[in-house]
């Protein structure tokens, strides 16, 4: 059962990498990073159980926190970046979508 879950999460990770590479818009990439982070948390928790060393869960907590912080940071900075030259960036975003 654990193995099946690991495989499913692995496939989901690969899919999200694909979305991150293909992208189209900025926000798709951020979304892919976010999902990838959550999947990594789960993967590590599962790996800890499979290897029989559940101490790994500390790392899972760190991942969850860092994922949150980095997504917030990305949004914060991409936000202000675009406010500064709103016109050009908006146009490109619209074209891409």
């Amino acid at each position: 059962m654990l193995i099946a879950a690991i495989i499913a999460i692995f496939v989901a990770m690969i899919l999200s990498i694909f979305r991150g590479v293909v992208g189209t818009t900025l926000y798709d990439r951020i979304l892919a990073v976010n999902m990838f982070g959550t999947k990594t948390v789960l993967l590590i928790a599962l790996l800890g159980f499979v290897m029989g060393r559940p101490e790994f869960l500390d790392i899972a907590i760190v991942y969850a926190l860092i994922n949150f912080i980095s997504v917030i940071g990305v949004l914060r900075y991409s936000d202000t970046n675009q406010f500064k030259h709103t016109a050009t960036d908006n146009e490109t975003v619209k074209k891409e979508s």
Partner: protein
Amino acid sequence: MDIVITISSGFFLLMGSFLCFSGGIGLLRFPDFYTRMHAVGVTDTLGAGMILVGLMILSTDFLVFAKLVMVLLLTLLIGPTTSHVLAKAAFHNGLMPRGLSTLEQDNNKVYSTSNP
């Protein structure tokens, strides 16, 4: 007792992995950003929760259980928040959902100028 634990944890794990998997498919196949975000935001939180509950049932140590509860609370708190912030930022910066009419785009312009 043993078999109950195995079956229930297996059920949760399989449900969780199915949700994660479908979230991944949705992320890849849906047409525009907002639908993708819907797919990911919903399935991610519930799928992660399911898998963590499944692991909780399997865990024997109290410390491990407590840590799993912590991870679960964190994902429950963080997942929706990031989805919310992401959607808000995307909308503020003028990324329109697919198939919206020009009328609504005008509305959006009014909205974004009133909130500089």
